[in-house]
Every structure is written in C-alpha cells, then in structure tokens.
C-alpha cells in the first residue's frame, strides 16, 4: 500500500484537557513573595493573544502577562476600580467570536497576595451546575481555571455555582502525577478553607461578568519550598459552554493561557523574586488550543462525508458538559477548494446536529474509565457516519463493528464477538498513554510488524479484504488492519524517526518517511462511495490537519494459507540484486585486529615517565605519573611512520592496569594531526574515552572509539527513542551524534560509539597521528601499565557511511551484521544444501557446528 498526500486543510487543532492536568510538578507559584520595586512579571503565554489574531482564524496569542503592584488596598468585591489594569491581556478562542466569547485577564501582586482578575464576556449568564459540595469538577462546565506547578496547589477552579448561587474556588492540592489518591481537594466557597483565598463574582450591567480573586499563599508545611528551574508552569483556561436555544449544550469554547515559564526563583537571600524568567519549558504547545476553523475540533473526533463536509464531534467536551450529556456533533459544510488543494469550509453555516441525530454508542467496558468511545451517528437524512472517539488517555481502545457483530478493543488489540468470545488478538506494545510524552525510553522501537502505542481507532472502510480499520498510535503511525486481525499496512513513520511534515506539502507527495507528530487529537479514515477512494484525515500536533488519499488499499489481496511458490516472474525486478547484496559482505573480508606501531622514540611525556618493558606478550609500557599540578599527566606517542590508517576499524583497545594504590581513570585519546581544543570545552579532530581502573582488578581492557565526524555519516540508525534524561530525540538520531551515557543507547555504532563532544567530535580515521595515554587531574602518584594496543572491530567504509541505500539492510536474513565477514559466519548456502525446503536454502535445522573434541 502506498500513501499519497492529496490536499490539505487549514490549520486546526483540538484541545486536550487531560494533558494539562498531568503536568504538575513541585515548585510554587505565588505572588506574595515577590520582591519590592518595580516588578514586571513576565508570564510567557503560548496560546493567548492581546491583539487581534490573524485572518487565518487563530486563538489569542499573548506572550506576556505583567503582574503589577496594586495602587493601594485591594478589596475583593468584583469591582476593578482599585486595580491597576495596565498589564491586562485579552484571551479568546477565535477572533470571529471575540466580541461574544473572550476574557480579559489582569494580575497584581503585593507582599501577601497574588491577585487575578477576569473580565468575562459571554452573551449568556455563566451557567455551571457543578455542585461544589458534591463535585469539585467545575471545569466540566463554564469555568475559569488556573493550573500551576507548585509544591502545594496545582489547580484552582473558579466558577459561579448556578444551583447554589455562590462563587466557588476549588483548590486542588497535590501531585497529579502521583495519582488521584494523592490529591487532596478543598472547595472554598464562599469561605476559603485556605486562609486568604477569596473570590468575588459580579455580573456587570453591560453584560460583562467580573470575577476577581486574590489567592494567599496556602499555609502548608514546607512552603514555599525550593523552586525547580525546570518545567515551571502556569496557565489559565476559560471555558464557555452555553446552552443552545433548545436547551441542549452547544459546542464548547475554550481559551487558554499556556505559560511555559514561571517567575519564581530564590533570590540571593533565598526568597523568591519576580524579575527573572526561568527557562526550561517542555510544553510550549500553543497549537493545542487553536480552533482556526471557527469551530471546535474537540478531542474526540472529526470526519468528512462524501461531499467533504466536515463533522466535528466533541466527545470529551460533550461528556463533561453539564455533568455529561453525550457527544456533540457539528456539521461544517464544504465550500470550495483552494488552488493549492486545501478544502475550505463555510464556518458561518455550521450546524449543530446534536439535537437532530441519533447517536448509538458502543459501550465496551474494560478497566479504564472511558466507556463510550465508539459511536455511530445517524443523520436525519438517513446517512450514517461513524466515529471512533479517542481514548481519553486511558488504556483502552474500542472499535464497534456492528455489521460484523464484533468489537475491537485493546491494547493488546483484541477482537471480541458480541457473545464475548475472543476471536483474535494482535501484539500491541502498549507502554501507557503518556509515555509518548514523558518516557519515550519505554516505547518500543519502530517496527512494521508491531503495533506500538495504539490510542484510538480512526474509522473503518470496506475493502476487497473486507472491513479494514485504522488505528492511531501515540508514536505517530497509523496502522491498518482487517477485522480478521491481519496487519496490512501503515502510514507515516514513527515520529521519533520520521522527517517532519513539510510546511508546504505538495499534492501527490509521498508519506514515506514522514511524520505528523506523535499524537493526534483525532483523525478519520473512510472510503468515498462516489470515488471509491480511501481517505485519511490526519494530523493534530502541528496545528494543521490534512486530507490524505490512500492508494492501493484495494489492491491488497489475501493469500490462502499453505505453501506459497514464488516464481521469478513474480519477484520484484530488483530482487536478485537485493538478494545478492544480502549475501555478499561489503568489506574487504575477514578483518583481524591490528597492533598499533608506536614511535616510542618520539614519545612526549607530561608529568610522567615512560618505560618500555619487554614481556611475554610483547612490549609493555610502564607510565609513572608524578605530577599533580597539570590538568592531565601521561604520554603522547606518535604513530610510527607518521600516521595510522584505521579506516577499517571501530576501536582502539588496550589492556591496562594500575599498580595503585588508588583507582584511577585512564584515558585513551586519538589525534589527527590538526587536533585541537574546539573552544567549547571539547576536542576537535580527536576522540577520547576513559575507564576507571581499580588496582585490584588487574589487567583490564579499555578502548577508545574511532568515531567518524558527524558530516561523514549519513545514516539514521539508532536504538532507543529518547534519553531518560530528556535529551531531545531529534538531536540524537542518526550518524555520529553525541551522547554521554550509553546505558540506554544503541551501545555501539558500526562507526564507533557516540560520546560527548568533550571527548572529541570525531576524527579522520585514515590519518591518525598520535595516541595519548593519560590520567586526568592526577591527585596522587601512580603507575600505569599498558599493553596489547591494537585496532579492532570492523567499520563500514566511508562510502557505506555516506550512503544509506548501500548500508541498509545492515543485517542479513540470519540477523548477522552484513558488512563484515568473520570465521564462522553463517552463509546462505553453507551446509544448507541437503534438506533445504526451498530454493533459498534457508531451512537448516539447528546448529551446524560440529563439536570435534569430545
């Protein structure tokens, strides 16, 4: 199956409340500790705009919120005449509805309090039926919510309780990351449980609604704690969820201030100050909150019908509205295509279909809390649409197949007949709903035969194979499976591997090797009954989504089970060449280790003495380190003849021991003639590695990788998705990248193990001039002995390193490294002639090695 890009849509994105609710970490955001003086509190916003958004239809995009000192005493009464509003910003979800749905946000601080004021525009009164005494989830309806990373409060929800007619502050304490069991909530309405927390709510005569609230520092033990410079966070959300004329819930609007940086940091006196901006945001994800179409594409689903009319289904929002009223579906009619192939929808004519349609849901109970994910929508005209809602980030996946009487759930992807019989399962490496964001190391590597991180079904379509359904995964791939459990293809690369989707996609471009990011907020897979083409609405993490035509789905045929005979005619034209390549090693054959010829007569010493000693194994170098003043002590030994050509090798290894008394780190370094400090604390044209050698360990092997320069390696070969310490994956992929910790890494590359640039960014292996053996920062006298210095390990040629098409595949059909040969390497035809089942001669049974010495 091939996939081709067949047009693209306008920027769009749905929201994800759950993500935000899970990012809290310790550290405190609080205004009362702010220092005196003119303070400019810079809150970096990524989703809130003070100025009008662009004509493309965007949410507000402020980037700063200034908290200012109050002019005098502040009374929390909903009136703002005692406020300094000079730092006020405006927040709205969509500029077209800015006049009716927006909020103005202002902040102040003094030595005791942090103040926030919200001027709330809404043509209808705030309606929020969430009873604060029974349910603290005011965010399920109209509400203003603050989210912050602190060591105490993490959520502050403010709303006016319609039923009880009182303003409510709901403060949530604890770490969401630790789970609900560790949270402690207090409803502070109207009397704040936390001393000083207070809210006032006022409905303005001009239709504006005013809500202001100062929040005191909660008097909790340990406050304020020591802020962590990483991941500090503060955000506000404004939720509008009005009723329709018929009393049914309307689509929701949500405007967010997403504040990736915070302003609290200890001053020299240990107190918090306000005039510094901390770096280290992990969540500058403004695109999450844009509804550029002028309609919400909420977390839950959107799809097209035959006429490319867009349907938006707010599963989650619908679920949460007013305590839960089911999905809400809007239809946005298709208007026209742009010359570039982008569909344009007529936003003004959007219709809410919630009250006109019948929604039949599939309820499949697993252990997760979401029970309503897949649903079928029956339009008044008889048309039936199908949407598979997302999984709300809880384990579980549902695809309702009413025609087949089956439900597909997972992970692992499992098909269950409606009588409860399990029909089939397919292996799905499910690492958890959030691992795609925070713990990529636990996600399996990209494999074509394995489902990884599946998070939701994107729809189904009839093909010649029967019903095929698409599964979205948290790693950016879309898998296509039949209802019989056959994985027939995929679209997009693993987002840890793929090339980013271009900003100017071209009609007809291939999807091969590309990614749209790891986690979409929807998508839909369907077949046009008019054209019989298959389409995929894709994307989500890049604030855009795209209409993609899938070619070839109907060309896939099922092959009956049993023996399959493939003739030469049926082979791919390149098959013989590929097979030949797979058999023939591309190095110069068997590679033996190579002793380095050392020019000891020209060796230079630094705070050390060098004494060659003959022993049974050859020449042993005794290096006595005497100095303690230099940053390193040791010897520099030139290559005999001026240079070593180590092009065929990956490492220089040696046996080393120290005579004590203490353990010492012994470094090996290889230099090109032009080796030098790179001016950044690292080495240029040199490579180095070190090993701690304990005198009790005796002779120990150590090595230094002959790492190629980054620009010499064009291969993208790696082993793990992301570093446990959070290093951006993209910087780590491919070639001679750098890394300091190999414990969670592809432990060695064919061209040498990647290490930190401080240990050299790479060398020309054909022109190695010098070996340096040293002890860094010597503290005591010590004596090293080193012997058996040689190059070892076969390296690909420079041509292979620069040519992925030549390098891959890098293993043969037996799993052996293909670009080298060695004694005992299993060859395709060796020993497999007799008893072979097929023309390939691949059916050798068991080890062919024969023990000869019994």
């Amino acid at each position, binding site marked *: 199956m091939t996939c081709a890009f067949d047009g693209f849509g306008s920027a769009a994105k749905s929201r994800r409340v759950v993500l935000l609710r899970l990012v809290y970490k310790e550290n405190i955001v609080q205004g009362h500790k702010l220092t005196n003086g003119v303070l400019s509190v810079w809150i970096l916003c990524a989703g809130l705009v003070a100025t009008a958004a662009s004509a493309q239809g965007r949410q507000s995009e402020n980037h700063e919120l200034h908290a200012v000192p109050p002019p005098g005493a502040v009374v929390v009464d909903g009136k703002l005449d005692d406020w300094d509003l000079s730092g006020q910003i405006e927040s709205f979800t969509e500029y077209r509805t800015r006049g009716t749905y927006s909020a103005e946000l202002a902040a102040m601080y003094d030595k005791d309090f942090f103040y926030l004021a919200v001027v709330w525009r809404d043509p209808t009164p705030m309606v929020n039926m969430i009873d604060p005494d029974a349910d603290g989830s005011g965010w399920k309806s109209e509400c203003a919510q603050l989210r912050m990373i602190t060591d105490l409060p993490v959520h502050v929800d403010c709303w006016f309780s319609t039923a009880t007619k009182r303003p409510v502050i709901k403060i949530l304490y604890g770490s969401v990351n630790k789970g609900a069991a560790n949270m402690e909530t207090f409803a502070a309405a109207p009397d704040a449980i936390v001393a000083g927390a207070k809210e006032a709510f006022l409905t303005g005569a001009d239709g504006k609604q005013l809500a202001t609230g100062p929040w005191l520092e909660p008097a909790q033990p340990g406050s304020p704690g020591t802020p962590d410079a990483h991941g500090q966070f503060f955000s506000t959300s404004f939720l509008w969820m009005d009723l329709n004329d018929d009393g049914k819930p309307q689509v929701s609007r949500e405007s967010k201030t997403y504040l990736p940086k915070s302003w609290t940091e200890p001053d020299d006196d240990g107190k918090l100050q306000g005039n510094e901006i901390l770096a280290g945001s992990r969540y500058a994800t403004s695109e999450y909150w844009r509804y550029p179409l002028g309609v919400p594409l909420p977390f839950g689903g959107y799809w097209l019908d035959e006429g490319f009319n867009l349907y938006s289904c707010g599963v989650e929002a619908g679920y949460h509205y007013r305590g839960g009223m089911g999905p809400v579906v809007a239809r946005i009619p298709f208007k026209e295509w742009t010359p570039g192939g982008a569909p344009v929808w007529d936003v003004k004519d959007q219709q809410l279909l919630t009250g006109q349609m019948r929604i039949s849901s599939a309820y499949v109970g697993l252990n997760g809390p979401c029970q309503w994910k897949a649903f079928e929508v029956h339009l008044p005209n008889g048309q039936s649409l199908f949407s598979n809602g997302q999984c709300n980030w809880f384990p579980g996946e549902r695809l309702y197949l009413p025609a087949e009487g089956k439900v597909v759930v997972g992970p692992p992807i499992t098909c269950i007949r409606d009588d409860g019989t399990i029909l089939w399962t397919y292996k799905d490496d499910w690492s958890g709903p959030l691992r795609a964001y925070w713990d990529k190391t636990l996600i*399996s590597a990209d494999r074509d035969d394995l489902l990884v991180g599946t998070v939701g079904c994107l729809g189904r379509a009839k093909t010649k194979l029967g019903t095929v359904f698409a599964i979205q995964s948290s790693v950016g791939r879309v898998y296509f499976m039949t209802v019989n459990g056959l994985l027939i293809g995929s679209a997009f690369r693993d987002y840890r591997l793929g090339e980013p989707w271009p900003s100017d996609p071209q009609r007809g471009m291939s999807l091969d090797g590309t990614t749209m990011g790891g986690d979409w907020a929807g998508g839909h897979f369907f077949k046009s009954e008019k054209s019989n083409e298959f389409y995929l609405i894709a994307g989500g993490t890049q604030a855009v989504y795209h209409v993609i035509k899938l070619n070839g789905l109907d060309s896939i045929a099922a092959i009956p089970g049993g023996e399959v005979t493939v003739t030469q005619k049926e082979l791919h034209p390149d098959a013989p060449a590929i097979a030949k390549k797979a058999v023939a090693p591309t190095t110069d054959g068997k590679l033996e280790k190579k002793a380095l010829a050392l020019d000891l007569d020209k060796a230079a010493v630094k705070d050390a003495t060098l004494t060659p000693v003959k022993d049974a194994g050859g020449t042993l170098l005794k290096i006595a380190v005497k100095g303690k003043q230099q940053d390193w002590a040791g010897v520099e030994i030139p290559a005999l003849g001026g240079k070593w050509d180590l092009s065929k090798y990956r490492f220089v290894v040696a046996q080393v021991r120290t005579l004590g008394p203490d353990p010492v780190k012994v470094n090996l370094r290889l230099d090109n003639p032009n080796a030098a400090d790179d001016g950044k604390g690292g080495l240029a044209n040199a490579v180095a590695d070190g090993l701690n050698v304990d005198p009790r*360990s005796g002779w120990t092997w150590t090595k230094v990788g002959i790492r190629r320069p980054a620009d010499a390696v064009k291969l993208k070969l790696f082993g793990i998705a992301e570093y446990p310490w959070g290093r951006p994956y993209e910087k780590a992929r491919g070639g001679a990248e750098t890394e300091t910790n190999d414990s969670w890494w592809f432990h060695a590359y064919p061209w040498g193990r990647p290490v930190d640039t401080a240990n050299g960014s790479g060398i020309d292996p054909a022109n190695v001039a010098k070996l340096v053996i040293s002890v860094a920062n010597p503290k005591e006298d010590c004596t090293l002995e080193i012997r058996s210095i040689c190059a*070892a390990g076969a390296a690909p040629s420079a041509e292979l390193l620069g040519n992925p098409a030549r390098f891959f595949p890098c293993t043969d059909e037996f799993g052996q490294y293909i670009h080298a040969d060695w004694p*005992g390497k299993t060859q395709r035809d060796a020993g497999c002639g007799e008893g072979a089942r097929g023309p390939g001669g691949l059916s050798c049974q068991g*080890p062919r090695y024969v023990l000869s010495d019994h």
Partner: protein
Amino acid sequence: MNLRLGMLLDGASPATVAAAAKHCDVLCFRLNRTSPADFKLPDGIDKPVIIAEFGFSALDRGMLAGDLPDQAARAAAYKEYMIGALKNPQIVGCHWSQYRDYPASGRARDEANYNAGFVDIADTPYDEMIQAAREVGKTMYKERLEAK
C-alpha cells in the same frame, strides 16, 4: 525447608548486603571485574555467594558492541574470571550471563547488541569459548581444592 537465593545485587552498599544476608541463604551478585578472586563480603557477613551474571564481549565476530579485540582475548578473560571464582571459597556458583548473542540490531527496550553469547545469533558456537570452558571444567575441582 527452602533455600533462599537473594536477588542480584549490583553495586550494593554494605548495609544492603547485610540486610540481604539476614534473610538469604545465598547472596547473589553481579561482579563486573576481571576476576572475583579477591571479592569479599562486608565484615561480619559469612554467606555463600553466587555470581549471578558475568560476561565478556569481543569485537571480531560481527557484533557491534564489545570491549575485547577478539575471541582469544575473550576466552582468556573467561578463564581468568572462572579460575578467580574457583579460588574464592566464598563463591559457590558463577553464571555466564547469556547463552546467545544479542541481536546485532539491538535487543528490544535497551537495544543491547553485545557479543554476549556462547553461540552467535545464528546458533554457531564460539569455538574459543568452548575450548576455554572445557579447560576450566577439566581443572575446576583441582583449582577449588587447592584454593586457600
């Protein structure tokens, strides 16, 4: 009566070893060193020890990760380690970490691709290692009985 083998301790503190010794009949360690001959338990602890995992990797047979130049060096390292274990009266067992090499393209999860096995990925034994194992086997009781 049960024989309690402790969990694999890797770089454990003396306090941890002492805590394990209270409950375990045999203490298990990963000891990455050239020889365990001089390995000692913390003062006051006298328990049998099993080396639950050790191994050496070489670079000459198509594996991308390893520390030793060739199988000869690997076999020598194996022999030195085993003889060291035999000479240490505290040690009652010694486990080679893995029968088969890791995949050349890396093990799932941690992507280890070491030459860790007694046989390679295509099931071919490493002759040098077999010979070394036989030599150790032939002399192991003698080594043990002669150990001080």
